[in-house]
């Protein structure tokens, strides 16, 4: 079982949480919780200074990346078509 000292030791070696967790066979979020005592998804926790605690968001240690991927190409193409259909916008009316 992963211990706090075990995770921290790996972090001190320069590993990030993802790598440390992989080495220990646990999830990155669990590794974060073991090392800091804080849930990686920050449930009911507003941030305090602890060894190993990250300053930024740690949600991704515990969860899937958010989806869906946003693709704006269709919207931008549609805007261009809308403008092209309106010659008055270019002084043509």
């Amino acid at each position, binding site marked *: *079982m992963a211990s706090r000292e075990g995770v921290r030791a790996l972090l001190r070696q320069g590993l990030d949480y993802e790598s440390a967790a992989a080495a220990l066979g646990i999830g990155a979020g669990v590794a974060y919780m073991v090392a800091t005592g804080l849930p990686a998804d920050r449930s009911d926790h507003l941030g305090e200074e602890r060894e190993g605690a990250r300053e930024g968001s740690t949600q991704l240690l515990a969860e899937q990346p958010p*989806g869906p991927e946003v693709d704006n190409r*269709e919207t931008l193409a549609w805007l261009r078509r809308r403008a092209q259909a309106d010659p*008055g916008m270019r002084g043509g009316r």
Partner: protein
Amino acid sequence: MARRAGAARWPLLGQLAGPDRLGRGAAARSPVSASLRPRVASADRVVKSICPYCAVGCAQNVYVKDERVVQIEGDPDSPVSRGRLCPKGSATLQLTTGPSRRHQVLHRRPFSDDWETLDLETAMDMIAERVIQTRAETWEERLGDKKLNRTMGIASLGGATLDNEENYLIKKLLTALGVVQIENQARVCHSSTVAALGTSFGRGGSTTCLQDLQHADCIVIEGSNFAEAHPVGFQWVMEAKARGARVIHVDPHFSRTSALADTYVPIRAGTDIAFLGGIINYVLAEERYFRDYVLAYTNAAVVVGPDFRDTEDLDGLFSGFDPESRQYDSSSWQYEGLELTNPASGNEELTPYREGGAGTGHGESHGSGGPALKSGVPERDPSLQNPRCVFQILRRHYSRYTPEMVEEVCGVPRDQFLEVCRALVENSGRERTSAFAYAVGWTQHTVGVQYIRTASVLQLLLGNIGRRGGGIMALRGHASIQGSSDIPTLFNLLPGYLPMPYAHTHERLRDYIAAERVDKGFWAEMRSYMVSLLKAYWGAAAGEDNDYCFDYLPRLTGSHSTYETVFEQLEGRCRGYFLLGENPAVGSANTRLQRFGMAQLDWLVVRDFSLIESATWWQDGPEIASGEMRTREIKTEVFFLPAAAHTEKSGSFTNTNRMLQWHHTAVEPQGDARSDLWFMYHLGRLIREKLAGSTEPRDRPLLDLTWDYPVEGPLREPSAEAVLAEINGFDAEGRPLGSYTELRDDGSTACGCWIYCGVYKDGVNQAARRRPAQEQNWLGPEWCWSWPANRRVLYNRASADPQGRPWSERKRLVWWDPERLSWVGDDVPDFVADKPPDYRAPEGARGAAALEGDDPFIMQADGKGWLFVPNGLVDGPLPTHYEPQESPFQNALYRQQSNPARQLRPHPLNLYQPSGELPGSEVYPFVATSYRLTEHFTAGGMTRWTPYLTELQPEFFCEVSPELARERGLEHMGWVTIISARSAVEARVMVTERMTPLRVQGRTVQQVGLPYHWGPNGLSRGDSANELAPVALDPNVHIQEVKALAVDLIPGRRPRGEALRQLVREHRRRAGVTEATGTRL
């Protein structure tokens, strides 16, 4: 062996026998707990979303597995909610996936006694046919020689629970159809806010953001139960308190907000102007105003014309009041040396209801642009000694609002009142700031706009606007009620608070612009905003040669608010009705009137999650029970169309502090459930197909409408992002615009809502940004996007002194950097970024160039905060205490009892009670006020069908004091019947010291608390408090008075059937109620 292994699994033995003898790790886990996995861990994806309930706008993570939502949790990255959700937000999994949701279209034929199922395609076709037919039969092309181009035969209600993009399509399509009766919850909740804040500061939105409350040194919460109605937002009040701030709660009803405050002040409902006016008097009398701020940033020094007479001179009336029409002529309120350009907003001569005293104020059109003033330089007296300067008028106006008078009117003891005064003045000034937070406890009165105006005056005097930890926080109650005001589904507004045109004043675009624009500040560019909107609506059809299709806009002839619509229904003129996520049979004043109105319709379309009361009144409503309606005699054809949840569509909500937050589609809606974007888009498509080739002039606005949105997925859902891009605006090449300063009035730009311009800057959906709060400053500027221009604290130029230096280091927010020659700070400056503090406008300058370097209110016609409102409101330039429409007390300050300009609609179904000293008022001796609970939401459509929430708050109840319980023989947990001139309802009795008896005018007044969420449908059922309320409205914005009523109580359950009506009639007989009662000036 197996036996030993089994024993080892026994936790205690395993712990003692293993390496973890202290039980701090593995030994503490049983095999069962070891096998457990969080639901979120196995999710296929996490989708970013926003809570669909109140307007705090808590961020959510939606977890999806196998194309089903399996969990919804708070998103800790949000700078506003920080991962928290209230009970409602926590129950959204059940709201969106629970068994109470309907997924099939239902149809009730005229005179039928039951529903039938109907396929969605057929239903859409039938609805399109009904719209076309009703529109054709009720089309009004002209009124005399004036163009109307409209139908009064169709109305729509709802939008505050919907996305901005949905509101945009509702307004766009219905406007093109000539429908003017387009309304949403903003009318009945916060329309007062827009007019009050707009006329005071230039914009109608909350002046600050929730996170900024943490910096306040004192927070006064009044007219709001902040902790229970906006629980997650309240964390910022607690942050402030933890930093040493003083928290004060002023409210008729002790709640968890009161419990968490340092000071709780019980007050008689309906008297807040007297209370706040008393503080203003204290501030002025004790010389505790922030003189430098007041002199530089407000209109205190401006001299008012010699004809102005105050309520002190006319015993409760201002000059210009016409008792015949019950309307003010505001000419005498104007500044010395300036003339009026835009007469007191909206007193339109064609108003059909004028005889009834109804004004048609369009104070809301100052939601992002203050009222007009004629160009020129008003006379000023910087010494503030001129008896006609605003400062001296203010001093005289409030001089009798003494602590003793406050006690007499409000029931607040003198010492407690002075404690509040001292707390405010000691926490305001250069080094300290105070904030106000309010909600519908202030807005829902016949003088609701002036409630908020009073706080605005006070905050300007104290120098608390535009400053870190200052401001006025308008706590709005629906996920996008701010958005449905900005992109309005409101009868009198176009997107961006551009006013809808009136028939006789706005014949041509130039007339409209001339009537509405100002010379100074950004509202001077309103022609650019308007032309760009018309281009967004009508594209290639809109050109200079046809006034950019300005004639396509239907015309107003008076107030067409949701309450007028009900009377239109009763009179048979309004025949078709869309209800889009709103439940007026529970949520509007005089719900009985609402049902009688709907019973006169030809057709009704209800789009919601469940069979709300507004969908089923014909089958099982209270009037069916009383025998006043018979199902088989009701002609109304009803369509019920199931709605998609927020997890089933993409779009943006605008939260209470003007922040647009995008939520992504997590899963496709099931069955016939569809988004309102889908519904409006495809309804428009069908109607356009059916009318294709029409040569009728009335069909041109519809056929020329730009309605080419790309559709996606198997359901052919229109692209919400494309709609957002149109709202944002684009140039002639189709490039998204970055700022409203890029808009042009020559037709070369299109923009669906000028104040939202920038939300799609650089082709990026700025509202979808999710940079974690921990990675940026406390305002979270890269979390989503706020209007205007991503500013989080409005008027923040005022956080610096006239020379551009912070008033104090402790309160620095935005300041002038002389080296960079720019305004800098934590927030986006609400000012021209490179305009130095010593800039003086050259003679003849217009628009933004006419704003001087120390004019922080950039949307105002003079760049100043308005203590005195010479133009823009129809019931007076200064807030004045009037008693509610129905009150057990006489006005102690003036002979004038109630707001003289209040809007009344006496009708056999809308009778008023005697008030004050009038005979019969003793029949209704108790003051009632309604409010919200944490576990329920508005009219209950999103909570009373949710088991978790109904278990938490299962029943309608009435809070009474122990003294009142003894007086009326009420037992805790027993029943009480509450009676008004409209109806009677029953509730469980909660005997509690949370309701404080008050001493008012030498006698004790008892107050009664009524949560208003219930109705006869759902899992948790009960009577609706709004059955009791009359339609009595604020004349500026047509909001109803439901926060201060007069009622009677009797022990026990109410009678059933005809006996219920008999009870109400008997009370009316005793009180002498007739149609004329309560209508006296």
